[in-house]
C-alpha cells in the first residue's frame, strides 16, 4: 500500500476539525466492527450497497448522505448520537436490520456509531439540535377521538389509508430519496414501527418526519396554527390505538366448538373465536427466493360444530391483486430488486393464501417439510387465489408443486377484501369421505398447519411469497351430557342428605332439651 503523507495530513487536519479526537479514535475502533457486521448490507463505503442490499426492501441506509429516519431533531437535521445508538441497539423492526444490543457491547455500539458518523460530511456542520418535546397529552377515549379528527384533517389517509393499513391512494407511488419504492407504514401493526411504538415515539416521528422517506414533519403545521401541539399528541394516541399490543405467538390454535358455524368471514360470530397471530417471513430457501414480502403475518381463528371445521384468516395487503393502481409498483419493484433467481412476473398475479396440512394427519405425527412437503411426505393444500376467486384442493410435493385432486374433499370459501385487508373463511368437513385424500380432524386432537401468503402486485407468485413454520389446530372436544347431569345429581343428593340430617338433628335436640328444663323443679 502506497501511503501519501501530505494527503493523509490534509485529511487528518480536516477530520480533526470536524470531529473531536475522542470520537475519532472511537471511529477507528468502530470501523472494525462495521466491517465485520455492517458492511455486508451497508457496503464498504457506507453507501448502502453491500452484497445483500439489492434483494432488500427497504434498502439498507446509505450513510454517506447523513440522512436518517429516526431522529429527535428537525426535518433535514443530523440525528443525535443517542438517536443513532437507539437504532443500532433496537434495530429497525419490519426490516432486515436486527437489534444489535444482544450481539455487540455498549462500547462496540458507541464505536460503530462514531464510525458511521465519519462516513458523512454532514456531521461536520456542528452538534445536532434536538427539538423540544412537550408533555404527553394523554391517551384516553377523548384524546383518541380528537386524534382521529386531526388524523383526518392532516390527511394521513392519503398514504396510510382510512383504516391505517398502508393502502392510501398515494401508497403505490411512494419512493424514497434514492428512488426506490417504499411502503406506507401499516399503522395497525405498531410493533413494527421503526424508532419505537409508544405514544411519545410516535409523536416524535410526527414532529420530525422520517428523513429519506415520504413521511414529512408536521412541526410547521403546529407553528402555523393549523393544529395544536396537543392535537398532534392526540394523533399519536390515535395511531397507537389502531394496533393491539405486540401479539404473542402461540403454537396451538384452538378451534372452539360452536352450535352453528359463521356464514362469512364478516359474521359477528367470529368475534367469539380467539385470534392467533401467525408470523410469516420471506421464502428464502427454495428458488426463486423472495426477501421483500408484503405480508408479515396472518390472524387465524378456528371453530367447529362437530361436523365441519371453519377457519378465518385475516391479513393486511394494500392491494386486491391484480389492481391497476399497482402496475407501476410492480415495474419499480422489478427494477429495484435483484432478480438473480429468475425474472419477476411481468403482469400482476392474484393474491394467494395456502393453508397447508400433512396429507395424512392423524396417522403419523411426523410433519412434512414445511415448504410444501416433499416426495416422501406430501402436504395437503387448500389453495386460495383472489383472481379467479377460488379455492383448489390438492397435494404438493415441494413448494410450487401442486396437483389438484378431484373428489369429495371440498373446501368452501368466502373471501372479502376491505380497505387494505383480506378476510377469508374456509370450511371443510372434519372427515372427508375418502380419508386418504386429506387430513381427518378429530376433536381432542391437534393437526399441524402452516401458511403461505403472496401479494400478486408485489411480483409474488406460487413460490415467491411469505411462509410460516408449522403451527397446530386443536379441536375442542364436545362436552358429553353426563358432564352436565352429574353435578346436578350431586347437588340434589347432597342437599337432600343434608336436609335429612338437619331435620333429624333438630328433632333429637328438641326431645333432649325438654327433660333438662324440667329437671331443676
Amino acid at each position, binding site marked *: 500500500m502506497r*501511503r501519501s503523507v501530505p494527503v493523509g495530513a*490534509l485529511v487528518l487536519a480536516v477530520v480533526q476539525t470536524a470531529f473531536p479526537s475522542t470520537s475519532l479514535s472511537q471511529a477507528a475502533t468502530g470501523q472494525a466492527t462495521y466491517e465485520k457486521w455492517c458492511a455486508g448490507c451497508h457496503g464498504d463505503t457506507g453507501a448502502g450497497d453491500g452484497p445483500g442490499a439489492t434483494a432488500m426492501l427497504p434498502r439498507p441506509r446509505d450513510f454517506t448522505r447523513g440522512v436518517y429516519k429516526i431522529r429527535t431533531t428537525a426535518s433535514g437535521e443530523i440525528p443525535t448520537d443517542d438517536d443513532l445508538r437507539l437504532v443500532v441497539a433496537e434495530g429497525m423492526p419490519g426490516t432486515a436490520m436486527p437489534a444489535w444490543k444482544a450481539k455487540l457491547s455498549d462500547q462496540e455500539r458507541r464505536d460503530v456509531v462514531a464510525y458511521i458518523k465519519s462516513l458523512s460530511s454532514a456531521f461536520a456542520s456542528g452538534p445536532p439540535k434536538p427539538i423540544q418535546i412537550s408533555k404527553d397529552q394523554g391517551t384516553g377515549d377523548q384524546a383518541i377521538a380528537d386524534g382521529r379528527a386531526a388524523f383526518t384533517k392532516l390527511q394521513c389517509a392519503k398514504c396510510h389509508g382510512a383504516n391505517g393499513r398502508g393502502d392510501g391512494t398515494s401508497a403505490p407511488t*411512494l419512493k424514497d430519496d434514492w428512488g426506490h419504492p417504499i411502503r406506507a407504514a401499516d399503522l395497525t401493526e405498531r410493533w413494527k414501527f421503526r424508532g419505537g411504538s409508544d405514544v411519545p415515539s410516535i409523536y416524535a416521528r410526527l414532529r420530525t418526519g422520517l428523513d429519506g422517506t415520504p413521511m414529512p414533519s408536521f412541526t410547521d403545521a403546529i407553528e402555523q396554527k393549523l393544529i395544536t401541539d396537543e392535537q398532534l399528541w392526540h394523533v399519536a394516541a390515535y395511531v397507537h390505538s389502531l394496533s393491539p399490543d405486540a401479539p404473542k405467538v402461540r403454537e396451538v390454535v384452538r378451534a372452539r366448538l360452536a352450535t352453528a358455524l359463521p356464514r362469512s368471514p364478516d359474521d359477528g360470530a367470529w368475534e367469539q373465536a380467539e385470534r392467533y397471530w401467525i408470523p410469516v417471513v420471506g421464502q428464502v430457501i427454495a428458488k426463486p427466493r423472495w426477501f421483500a414480502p408484503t405480508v408479515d403475518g396472518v390472524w387465524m381463528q378456528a371453530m367447529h360444530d362437530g361436523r365441519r371445521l371453519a377457519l378465518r384468516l385475516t391479513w393486511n395487503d394494500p392491494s386486491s391483486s391484480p389492481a391497476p393502481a399497482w402496475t407501476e409498483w410492480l415495474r419499480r419493484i422489478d427494477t429495484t430488486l435483484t432478480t438473480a433467481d429468475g425474472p419477476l412476473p411481468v403482469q400482476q398475479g392474484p393474491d394467494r393464501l395456502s393453508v397447508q396440512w400433512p396429507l395424512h394427519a392423524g396417522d403419523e405425527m411426523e410433519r412434512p417439510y414445511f415448504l410444501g412437503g416433499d416426495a416422501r411426505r406430501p402436504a395437503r393444500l387448500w389453495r386460495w387465489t383472489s383472481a379467479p376467486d377460488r379455492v383448489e384442493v390438492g397435494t404438493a410435493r415441494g413448494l410450487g408443486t401442486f396437483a389438484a385432486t378431484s373428489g369429495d374433499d371440498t373446501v368452501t370459501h368466502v373471501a372479502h377484501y376491505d380497505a387494505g385487508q383480506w378476510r377469508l373463511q374456509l370450511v371443510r368437513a372434519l372427515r372427508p369421505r375418502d380419508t386418504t385424500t386429506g387430513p381427518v380432524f378429530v376433536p381432542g386432537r391437534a393437526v399441524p398447519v402452516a401458511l403461505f401468503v403472496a401479494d400478486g402486485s408485489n411480483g409474488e407468485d406460487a413460490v415467491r411469497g411469505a411462509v410460516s413454520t408449522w403451527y397446530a389446530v386443536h379441536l375442542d372436544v364436545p362436552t358429553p351430557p353426563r358432564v352436565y347431569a352429574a353435578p346436578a345429581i350431586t347437588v340434589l343428593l347432597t342437599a337432600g342428605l343434608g336436609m335429612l340430617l338437619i331435620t333429624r338433628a333438630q328433632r333429637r335436640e328438641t326431645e333432649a332439651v325438654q327433660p333438662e328444663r324440667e329437671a331443676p323443679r
Partner: protein
Amino acid sequence: MKRAFLCIFALTVSCKSEKKSDAGAATPAAGAASTATPAGTASSGPSGDGVVSGTVHFAGTAPKNPTVDMSEEPTCKAKYTANPVDSQYVVNNGGLGNSFVYVKSGLPAGATYAPPATPAVIDQKGCEYHPRVFGMQVGQKLEIKNDDAVLHNIKAVPHVNRGFNISQPSAGMTTTRTFDKAEVMVPFQCNVHGWMQAHAGVLSHPFYAVSSPDGKFTIKGLPPGTYTLEAWHEKLGTQTSTVTVGAGETKTADFNFSPKA
C-alpha cells in the same frame, strides 16, 4: 495511544481517497473552504453592466409530455379544463423553455454576493409546482406556499445541501427555508402526488436566468470578464458556452439541445 489511532485513521482515509481519484482527496479541503465563508456578512461582490442574452434552442420535434391522471385528487383536477400534462418539455418556435442558464465560472475568485432580501417563491397550485424551474441564492429565503386545499408534502432532495420534508395539509400555508451551499440543481418532490417535480438552481451569485417558453434568456449586471455559462434542462442534461463581456457590452450565447437518443 490516541495519537496512534489518529494516524491510522487518517492514513486509512487517505488511502481510500487515493483509490477513488486524485481529485477526491482535494474535495474535503474545497468543501471546508466553501463552508468557511461566513454567510450573511458578505458584502456584494463585483458587478457591472455587461449583459449576456441568447436562446436555448431545441432541434427537432419535442417529445410528448405525459398526461397526469389527477382523478385521485378531484380538488386539483377541477382546476383544469383539459387533462393536465407534466410539462417536462416546453418548446416553442424551436426554443426550449424552463432551462436554467447560469454563470458556472469566470467570476473573480473569492467574490461573494449577499442574498437578496426578497424571497424566492414556489407555489403548489393545481397539484403542480409554480415555477417548475427557478434560481435562488445561497442564504436567500425560499417561501413555500400551498394554494391547494389538499395535503402536499414538499421534499427537497439535495446532495450538497441538507434536505427537508414538510407537510402542508392546508391551503394558505407558507413555510420558509434556506439553502446554505451552492447546488445546481436541488430537486423538489411531493410524495402524495408523485408527478409533482420542481428544480431550483442555488448559486452563490445572482447571475442566472430561466429560459422563457420560447427559449430566451438574459443575464444582466455582469462585470467585465470571460464566463462559462451552463444551460441545464431536467430531461436533457447540460450544455456549456463561453462568452467574453466587456464593460457595457451585450453578448449573445446560444445553446443547442436535441432530443435524447
